[in-house]
């Protein structure tokens, strides 16, 4: 194997690839379109902020109680979650109008405040009627959860206030009251605690502890930017491997090349290196486009785990090109090989945990993602640059990916040899 010969294939194949508009579209333009769509359509700038529910209200309450229907509307208008208003209120006069808007999907929920709401709230139990809407079962579930959660919290607050007020009417302990052994408290304190317990029998401490990568837009975008890289690697790597020989044959170059002192091994090495270079350049462009839309892809060359990212990019490239060589066994024309490679690459991107998180997949597809080696390397890259895990956390994935790459490479080389023998008896 001579360096000059490998350089010949590397330079000519890479230049030729980037001079073809169709190829440039698939390795550069399409992934950038995906990144932009992720940034402005799938994960718009509003993503990562809490949602604001559109809430319709019909207020029939005109009572003069200290807290009435208008007070409830005021509370609903001002309640916030993580700095974002939880409800956007639209007040309706007629119930039918509000229900019509719910039917049209213009509202997420609606509340009807009946007449006497304030009085009943002060003196006993107030009635409310709420409608929950939504554009999918998922959003109905979320809307219902938010509204119920608010109303429960609101009811608890009212209950606690009422308990405080009720305490004012207690003057002293009845004659038959005995001090309970569990509490070292006065009668008044005992009653207060008991009433609070009626209002709030369980006081749960709820701590939000979700992975930041899934809750912050820049990190979500980072996850998808790497998904775009993975998708591009899949169909481009497949395509580069699948068309490597058949294209040379179709363009009439193969025989001439193999009549020179270069060997099939030179051609294989040159094609592989050229493929890896194309995938690397394309990956860099995709990641830069991701950074431009504020995706967070963190990579620090001084952090040991981050160096593994380079290894995994290499493994991913070798794996996909080798799988492309395997596809060339069943492809007789460049067009056929290209179509097969892109079709299969896109299909696997959507089903094997490359573009969509595998946790979203049904069981069978999750299994596919679990056994698909390119997903292992991409998972390792995401674990490092998105979740910022250490070497220990990706060590097993790395070993598995290395082993899978070696096996796929050897199978790919055998496929390549068979395809060469199909055309040339050298």
């Amino acid at each position, binding site marked *: 194997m001579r360096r000059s010969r490998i350089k010949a294939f590397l330079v000519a194949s890479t*230049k030729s690839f980037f*001079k073809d508009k169709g190829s440039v579209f698939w390795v550069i333009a399409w992934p950038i379109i995906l990144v932009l769509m992720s940034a402005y359509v799938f994960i718009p700038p509003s993503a990562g902020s809490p949602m604001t529910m559109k809430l319709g209200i019909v207020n029939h309450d005109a009572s003069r109680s200290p807290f009435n229907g208008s007070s409830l509307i005021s509370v609903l208008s001002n309640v916030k979650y993580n700095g974002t208003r939880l409800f956007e209120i639209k007040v309706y006069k007629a119930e039918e109008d509000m229900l019509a808007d719910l039917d049209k999907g213009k509202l997420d929920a609606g509340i009807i405040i009946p007449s006497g709401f304030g009085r009943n709230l002060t003196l006993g139990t107030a009635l409310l009627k709420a409608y929950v809407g939504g554009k999918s079962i998922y959003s109905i579930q979320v809307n219902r959860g938010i509204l119920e959660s608010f109303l429960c919290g609101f009811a608890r607050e009212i209950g606690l206030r009422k308990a405080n007020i009720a305490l004012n009417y207690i003057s002293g302990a009845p004659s038959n009251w005995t001090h309970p052994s569990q509490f070292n408290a006065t009668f008044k304190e005992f009653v207060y605690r008991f009433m609070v317990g009626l209002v709030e029998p369980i006081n749960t401490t709820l701590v939000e502890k979700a992975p930041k990568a899934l809750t912050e837009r820049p990190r979500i975008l980072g996850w998808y930017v790497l998904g775009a890289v993975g998708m591009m690697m899949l169909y481009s790597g497949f395509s580069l491997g699948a068309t490597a020989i058949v294209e040379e044959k179709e*363009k*009439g*170059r193969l025989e*001439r090349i193999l009549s*020179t002192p270069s060997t099939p091994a030179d051609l294989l090495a040159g094609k592989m290196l050229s493929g890896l270079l194309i995938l690397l350049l394309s990956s860099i462009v995709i990641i830069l486009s991701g950074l431009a839309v504020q995706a967070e892809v963190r990579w620090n060359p001084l952090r040991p785990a981050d160096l593994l990212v380079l290894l995994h990019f290499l493994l991913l490239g070798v794996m996909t090109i080798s799988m492309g060589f395997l596809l060339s066994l069943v492809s007789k024309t460049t067009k056929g090989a290209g179509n097969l490679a892109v079709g299969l690459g896109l299909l696997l991107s959507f089903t094997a945990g490359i573009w969509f998180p595998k946790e979203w997949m049904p069981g069978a597809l999750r299994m596919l993602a679990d056994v698909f080696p390119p997903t292992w390397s991409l998972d390792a890259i995401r674990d490092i640059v998105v979740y910022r895990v250490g070497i220990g956390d990706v060590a097993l994935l790395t070993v598995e990916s290395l082993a899978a790459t070696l096996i796929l490479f050897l199978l790919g080389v055998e496929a390549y040899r068979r395809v060469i023998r199909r055309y040339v008896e050298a």
Partner: protein
Amino acid sequence: MLLEARDLWKSFGGRPALRGVELSIKDKGIVSLLGPNGAGKSTFMKIAAGILRPERGSILVMGRDPRDPEARSLIAYCPQEPGLFDELNSWDNLMFYARLYSLPEQKAREKARILLEELGILDHASKPVGKLSGGMRKKLGLAIAMLAEPPLYLLDEPTTGMDPGSRRDVWRILREIKADGGAVLLATHYMDEADELSDTVYIMDKGRIVASGKPEKLKERYGPPSVVEIMFRRVPSQSSVEDALRGLEHTWSEGKLRVSVERPEKVVPRLVEQLYSLGADIGSVRIVKPTLEDVFLKLTGRRLETSEEK
């Protein structure tokens, strides 16, 4: 010995392509492999270039098996399809092959410039080769073969599809290769090309070498002593002319009638009289030397042109 093929046999799907071919090139010069399409010329060239294996027989390039990379560094094979990267320009294509031959970059660039200039492609050298004419692509293919300056060139139909001017350019280049001490094995179906350029001609038909030797010797041995070439302004009817020609070996080509004769001084007056009596309007009558076309006709009973059509 630059090239030596002994009893080469090759078939594709049971259909014989080569049948016991024997061919040798001992020294510098141009050796033509002349035959119609499908005669087996390209198959022979591919075996000589180490791309195909013979089923039987042996072939050596300067004493080595042509599949040995060392042997392949001693030849330059130019197939019918020039094997170019259409998206790249002529420089890039030349440099690609220069690297395959491990030529030093600077030397390769200088040589590329000379070749592009000689072949008249220098002005178009920066265009993607996919945008060049078929003739220019063929010339570039030839330039690639000449980059490495090997002792032996295997050129498969290098002038097919070229205009007459470009063919002349290529002929000039081939003569220069010969003058510089190179040896060329030229596969062609152009009789005039083989006649004009060759030191030795191997005539090939249906996978066999049917004759070989210097063009003049072949014509002496297999050709008729003379050929009468008659140009018509008007031919009454070909069938009536054919009656007049009964017993004489003849061919029609582009309105010309070529008749092989032993003693033209006896035959021509009688033939012209007969043709006039049939109502023919004769433009000219010439007695010319036989060509390799006549040799091929004699050996195979067919004309090269007719064989190609088949």
